[in-house]
């Protein structure tokens, strides 16, 4: 099924996208001539350190650039249509139904003083013509699908949930509008390692069910290697290397990609190297003795 889908026309395509920061009369280009393509059912990971422009790129797609930032060139094609010239209103509609969003800061995903269930129902009803009852059913269904105790979470305030639970709820909220593209901006950076894994597993599973494309923004190349189909490594506003995850993992060509991989070696690699060092030391010790 996903096989067939992934041959389809691209959901998202960036063509020579440049983003520019205006500071008084000066301006500075923060993202240079970015080219990306994302097909249905695919996961594309945009990897880079802080200041690399990866989040800016995601915000540009969402139309959430601040006043001082501007798209200075290129196109953002969503389902083949350039959305750069779109009005705010059209973009807002796109954010609602076409593109879903999961933030790093799961506390910011929900209004703190309104119960989760009520927020779900309101979101559903503002995009679809549903009765309260129907919306509630759908909301409960989605909470169940992300592995949460639906009844309890529906009647909880955001602060009553743990970080992992809130991030699951945020994923449910983003996916229940059936977007064809989900943008996940550092979705697990604020979570513990084990919780991160389960959240990423969940994203994988839901993706195979819904067939949506995922644009994943991350600073941790090692973590997304296992998850993404394609990876684009960004540095200082430019993509320095991109390709299939497997190729990046086994045969990275750019020095920066290699450094990213080297700075986050697998535990098994660390372990093997340390053991070897230990033996070498013991060896020299023996010889000296």
């Amino acid at each position, binding site marked *: 099924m996903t096989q067939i889908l992934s041959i389809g026309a691209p959901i998202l395509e960036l063509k020579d996208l440049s983003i520019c920061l205006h500071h008084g009369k000066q301006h500075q280009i923060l993202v240079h001539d970015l080219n990306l393509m994302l097909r249905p059912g695919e996961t594309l990971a945009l990897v880079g*350190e*802080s200041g690399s422009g990866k989040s800016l790129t995601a915000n540009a797609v969402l139309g959430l650039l601040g006043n001082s930032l501007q798209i200075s060139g290129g196109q953002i094609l969503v389902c083949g249509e350039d959305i750069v010239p779109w009005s705010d209103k059209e973009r807002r509609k796109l954010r609602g139904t076409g593109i879903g969003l999961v933030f790093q800061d799961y506390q910011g995903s929900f209004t703190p003083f309104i119960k989760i269930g009520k927020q779900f129902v309101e979101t559903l009803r503002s995009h679809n013509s549903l009765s309260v009852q129907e919306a509630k059913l759908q909301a409960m269904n989605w909470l169940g699908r992300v592995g949460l105790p639906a009844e309890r979470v529906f009647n909880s305030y955001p602060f009553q949930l743990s970080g992992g639970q809130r991030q699951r709820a945020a994923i449910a909220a983003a996916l229940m509008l059936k977007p064809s593209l989900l943008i996940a901006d550092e979705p697990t950076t604020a979570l*513990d*390692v*084990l*919780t*991160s*894994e389960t959240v990423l597993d969940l994203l994988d599973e839901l993706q195979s069910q819904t067939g949506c494309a995922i644009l994943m923004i991350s*600073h*941790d*190349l*090692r973590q997304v290697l296992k998850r993404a189909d394609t990876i684009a490594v960004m540095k200082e506003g430019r993509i320095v290397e991109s390709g299939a995850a497997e190729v990046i993992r086994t045969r990275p060509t750019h020095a920066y990609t290699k*450094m*990213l991989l*080297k*700075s*986050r*070696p*697998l*535990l*098994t690699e*660390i*372990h093997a190297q*340390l*053991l070897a060092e*230990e033996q070498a030391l013991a060896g020299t010790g023996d010889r000296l003795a």
Partner: protein
Amino acid sequence: MRQLLNAEKLCKTYHRSGTAVEALQEVSLHIEVGECLGVVGESGSGKSTLGRILLALEKPDRGDVRLQDHSIIGLKGKALREVRKHIQVVFQDPTSSLNQRLPIWRSVIEALDNFPEITPPFLEDVRHSRRDTAAKLLEMVGLKAEHLDRYPHELSGGQRQRVAIARGISLMPKLLICDEPTSSLDVTVQAQILQLLKRMKMELGMACLFISHDIAAVRLMSDRIIVMKEGRILDQFASRDIMSDERHEYTRKLVAVVS
């Protein structure tokens, strides 16, 4: 091996808005001279509380901490000052662990200012001048003299953490407690900071307590590892045995994620 620090059956309960959180339940550990002990755990495992108690910033409800056979619990004044000479710290977030209003060199030199009687061997030739001393310390952690008069916000996260490490080693403590020293940094910078810490530990012969949620980093740094969850020690082993079948199920889960 000589034992440097010994903690016995530490218990600590916090009371927050009516509910009691048992941060530490009967935690015992020891650290040997020059050894690095790693503590792995997720948030809420009590690993940071453990660090604060060993730093004598908090008192345990029960239990004892002994530094070379002298209890450090409830010390005040001179006796506490004596302990501070030997146990120093590097915190997680250098943005908040450096005073934003002080230039770098004043932060670096702070501990040495408090203990004028201490001159570590690596500072012998510069100790007469505070600025030269600060410059030497910065140089040791890979910064330059030009950083002396900068303010924390003018440095990158990695540079700030280097400053915090310079301050941590300045007294040449017997034990350096590193509480998630890389968690707030970019991945490439994390690796550099870990290398720096490892080098400092070797050069100065310090013991380390390395607290982190990242088991790969802990393996890299430590000789022995303690795994904590919900205030208890679940597993404890020599670092080289991390892949062994005898590991606790929880440890194996943590290992699997980064393998």
